[in-house]
């Protein structure tokens, strides 16, 4: 990649400082962006809130996210962010994030922690029971009194997807239809 605007501007600012002060340029101060992100790994991302599609840079240290800021090279936001985008750091680092698989038994007044394997097996069993019991292979149409093959699972609905990645949406669509789920909807309908 060519010199980024950030690097270019930093170089320019340093040179200007040198001319003005007549002193040898020193490394940025404690709150300079260079100090803040020095020695960190960075990767780009796109904001998960609205659909403007602003770019952000995520900085990590030892696998932990330590800083997120606007991507100055991104042509849409050019480094700028709104209050939500600026708060993405607190999505990544937040004690309220769900960390464990939780299960609530019928009638219970609390969640209990479970393993992924236990929960996924039980969910699979529930999905299969529901599909097997509510599967409608054929139905008589009320208007013309004819029988049609519909191959539909009536007893189950899938909601959501506007927060998923495209690849996830695709697999969700593929999986839902293979399960005979016609009750497939998401946020675009509300």
């Amino acid at each position, binding site marked *: 990649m060519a010199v980024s605007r950030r690097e270019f501007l930093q170089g320019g600012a340093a040179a200007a400082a040198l001319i003005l002060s007549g002193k040898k340029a020193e490394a940025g101060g404690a709150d300079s962006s260079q100090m803040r992100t020095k020695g960190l790994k960075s990767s780009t991302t*796109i904001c998960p809130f609205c659909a403007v599609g602003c*770019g952000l840079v995520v900085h990590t240290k030892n696998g932990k996210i330590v800083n997120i800021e606007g991507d100055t090279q991104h042509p849409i936001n050019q480094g700028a962010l709104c209050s939500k985008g600026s708060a993405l750091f607190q999505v990544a680092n937040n004690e309220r994030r769900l960390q464990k698989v939780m299960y*609530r038994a019928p009638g219970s007044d609390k969640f209990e922690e479970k393993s992924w394997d236990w929960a996924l097996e039980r969910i699979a069993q529930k999905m299969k029971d529901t599909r097997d019991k509510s599967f409608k292979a054929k139905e008589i149409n009320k208007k013309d009194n004819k029988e049609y093959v519909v191959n539909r699972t009536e007893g189950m609905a899938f909601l959501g997807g506007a927060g998923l990645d495209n690849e996830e949406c*695709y697999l969700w*669509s593929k999986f839902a239809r293979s399960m005979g789920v016609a009750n497939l909807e998401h946020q675009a*309908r509300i």
Partner: protein
Amino acid sequence: MTNHWIDLRNADAILAIGCNPAENHPISMKWIEAAMDQGGKLIAVDPRFTRTASKADHYAQIRPGTDIAFLGGMINYALQNNMVHEEYVREYTNATFIVNDKYDFNEGIFCAFDDQEKTYDAKAWAYAVDGAGNPKRDHSMKDPRCVYQLLKKHYSRYTVDMVCNITGTKKEDYLAVAKTYCSTGRADKAGTILYAMGITQSTHGSQNVRATAMLQMLLGNIGIAGGGVNALRGESNVQGSTDYGLLFHLLPGYLKSPEFDNVDLKAYLEKWTPKTKDAKSANWWGNTPKYTVSLLKAWYGDNATKENNFCYDYLPKRSGNYSFVKLMEKMGKGELQGLVCMGQNPAVGGPDSLKTREALGKLDWLVTVDLWETETSIFWKRPGVNPKDIKTEVFMLPAASSVEKEGSISNSGRWAQWRYKAAEPVGDAKSDLWIIDQFAKRMKKAYEKGGVFPEPITKLAWNYGQGEEPEVHMVAKEINGYFTKDMTIVDKDKTLEFKAGDQVPMFKYLQDDGSTVSGNWIYCGSYTKDGNLMARRDLADPTGLGMYPKWSWAWPVNRRIIYNRASVNPDGVPFNPKRVVITWDALEKKWKGDVPDGPWPPMNDAKEGKYPFIMLAEGHGRLYALDMKDGPFPEHYEPIESPAKNLLSKTQTNPAVKVPANMTSDTAKFPYVGTTYRMTEHWQAGAMTRSLPWLVELVPTMFVEISQTLARAKGINNGDMVKVTSERGSIEAKALVTSRLKPFNVQGKEVEQVGLPWHFGYAGLATGDSGNVLTPSVGCANTSIPEFKAFLCNIEKGGKRA
């Protein structure tokens, strides 16, 4: 969006109606302000004086739910004052088409209405056809049965006085808006219309959108830089989730999900493949068989063969409406045993939410996949209920955040942009990709052992690598598509050789015989032999219009402005030489600029020219629609709950909408217009923001906005607790008394409004009552999107928490 965010800077006028970009899409203001720096005018039309209105050159107040009156009046204004782009209208829209003799409109009702079923027979609105089967046309647009004359007649009723009486807009404000915006009806001017839920969340929402599109076509504003009809979508990948068909009526790529009487693949393709006899019409949906078969090959792999109809029988067939509100009704009747919510929170996000919360308790099992506890996942311990009484089994699965996984999302401008994984998910959280993969693998295993009609699951092609996490690049490659056998394709003067397994370079090479796979045809071209084009970061801008063609990848075929063949005249010469989207190079015989809407030469080329609106069988933009559920022209009706009589006809509300029981027109009990909206500091149903301390500090609790006059009348001070009630329920919140809200003048009477953010609920760090407790569960005739924006309510000082 037909256009994209940066393109807003190319507009001479920006009409923001039913949206509030400064509040809800703040960074878009960078480009709106760039347009304003060049002399562009910003117009804000909204019930409230919003953050966008505060930046606007013109602000017009509008009563919620009266957008068709407002836009219909602008259509009339443009027609009456000869402000339309005449060549564009004549050549590119169906203004010249003749409508059959049966078409009629009387007192708010179009012909062929069945009052019992509340449905129209849209066939009665068809074009008149000539002996060859093509629509009859009158290029002079003088025939009284041509669309142009019918349009003119229909909207002649929408006079400025009539409109302002309906919308409550001040006449001088309305005239300023109409004049400023309609002045873009010239070849060298561009106007863009921005809209969001203020337009869609209505019982005539689709017709609201149509009205914006019609105005844009009349002004020659579609296909050009700085133009278009631009939906400001509110969720980071709601464009993608729609593209991928996560809606009951769709399959990926806007293919229709099969209906019960599409009894086999042949019948399905017959029903959904439009036909034309006009050689100048590209009729792009004529390719439906190629896209459908390529999708079935992506889903059923080698099991999908010509002999077995490519496993078409495995797809579920719909018989009716399974939209969100209908599903909630079904759930309330105990007809659903299971529900899976992938990052959706219906206990807050849907209308009439007390009913939804109650309905969740009728489920046997509920799975929520989210980053947080949501009102939906803890509905069984919500305030006022005893968990013991709720028998639903709940699985709350922790999901990875956007920076803890890799994949693409599509913004409003159709740019699919790649995101990288920066860190491992927190705790035991997993990506949605992993979770879906686990569901599929476990169901496959279970059905291998038997069950009802197991084949759709056991035969499903599901091969995304051997790792613990499915390989996201394999998924992206399948979406793009590849050849299943060696192929030689002759494309005009080129002969192309492909090997089995090669990525398909673009969707024009997809086939209907099983020789190609493509999980979503509109994304074909996103991941080719050149790699993952969605990850591109090249800032070249060869047109200077801000299209950045090598930054990410836009569907379709990296086209940045769709319908761009309408930006040139029929000879291929740009209407506006200062903002050239595409131009025909007659020497090289090719288009330059943006990726054109098809490679054919300009429309006037006798042999190969094509009309610009390639997605319609007749190739012309529809000022008059043939397939809407509620009429060929948008007509003003009042919201179902309204303080006003319909002044334009005797038909009070959209006749094609069935009204549910818990709605009212009792203005004595509910005298105020309620409307819901969003704010910068919070997001949608709130789970993603109400647990972030920085945002909670900014907006810690639920509030409702009222005018100073209403506050005085009710003795409410800023910060007082108030109770807001509708026919569906009541909520408590802090009152925010503001001069930004003003009463509407409704037919000589002052009617007050109550503004409600809908982001709050009982889960998370910042809690508050949900605006959607009040909103009605009645939807648009075409889309079933609920009428969140306009309902009747009452407000009183006090409440239990005061």
